[in-house]
């Protein structure tokens, strides 16, 4: 009798963590589903998902990344402000495509297809930008009569500040290309209006 009781107690003790894991898994699944559904349908980001907003965000990103980036590189100043601006723009870009690149499962099949296409296009765009930068560097080097590669010791074209600027630029370039490649096309102005459309 006592052994039977012990066995059932053992079983209950063994089952408890399993049950706890199942409950936690179910809660996490439910939270993920709710979160993903919220991302898909939330009206908070409606101001950023329409086409004019995407054009504006993409233009601002291009100016900040290439224009301001070049200025930071030349003047060796404002790197903190530039980095913060890029981080804010990265969030705006993510929100403007409803976080399809950030949250797994938030994209439906149309968005997934568009996302895959954007990744492919971004890859070739990065190659194009890299080639352009190298060619511009080579042109500058030949125009100024300096060798492009062999003067790291005496020539301070790439000092610490500029190396850091280059690193931030590289990270931002890779981050933003997929958003550029995703295209300018956004959603209609408000989800509420669209909900009412029956035909």
């Amino acid at each position, binding site marked *: 009798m006592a052994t039977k009781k012990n066995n059932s107690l053992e079983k209950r003790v063994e089952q408890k963590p399993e049950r706890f894991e199942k409950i936690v898994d179910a809660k996490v699944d439910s939270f993920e589903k709710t979160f993903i559904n919220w991302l898909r349908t939330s009206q908070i980001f409606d101001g950023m998902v329409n086409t004019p907003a995407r054009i504006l965000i993409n233009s601002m990103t291009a100016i900040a990344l290439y224009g301001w980036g070049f200025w930071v590189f030349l003047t060796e100043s404002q790197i903190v402000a530039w980095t913060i601006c890029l981080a804010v723009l990265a969030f705006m870009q993510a929100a403007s495509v*409803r976080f399809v690149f950030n949250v797994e499962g938030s994209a439906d*099949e*149309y968005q997934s297809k568009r996302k895959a296409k954007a990744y492919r296009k971004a890859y070739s765009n990065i190659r194009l930008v890299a080639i352009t930068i190298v060619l511009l560097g080579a042109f500058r080097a030949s125009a100024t009569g300096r060798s492009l590669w062999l003067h790291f010791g005496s020539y301070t074209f790439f000092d610490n500040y500029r190396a850091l600027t280059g690193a931030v630029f590289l990270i931002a370039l890779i981050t933003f290309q997929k958003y550029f490649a995703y295209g300018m096309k956004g959603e209609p102005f408000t989800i509420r209006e669209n*909900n009412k*459309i*029956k*035909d």
Partner: protein
Amino acid sequence: MGRKPKSDEELVFNRLEAIRTKAGMTRQQLADAVDVHYQTIGYIERNEYSPSLVLALRIAKSLNKKVEQIFSLEEN
């Protein structure tokens, strides 16, 4: 009929807009029923996007129709 699909995409025509309207469903309601974004329903209705077989079957089921009643290879 909406804008034509790009040349590298397969042409699939549909009567989704008419059938959905007849069924009294909004884009959002249909989108919720088949688990896609409401925009995707708009792209399909305007022939800007050809849905996968799974999505086409889900749409047909939600509207109580056969797939071929909604989607076709020829423009009706």
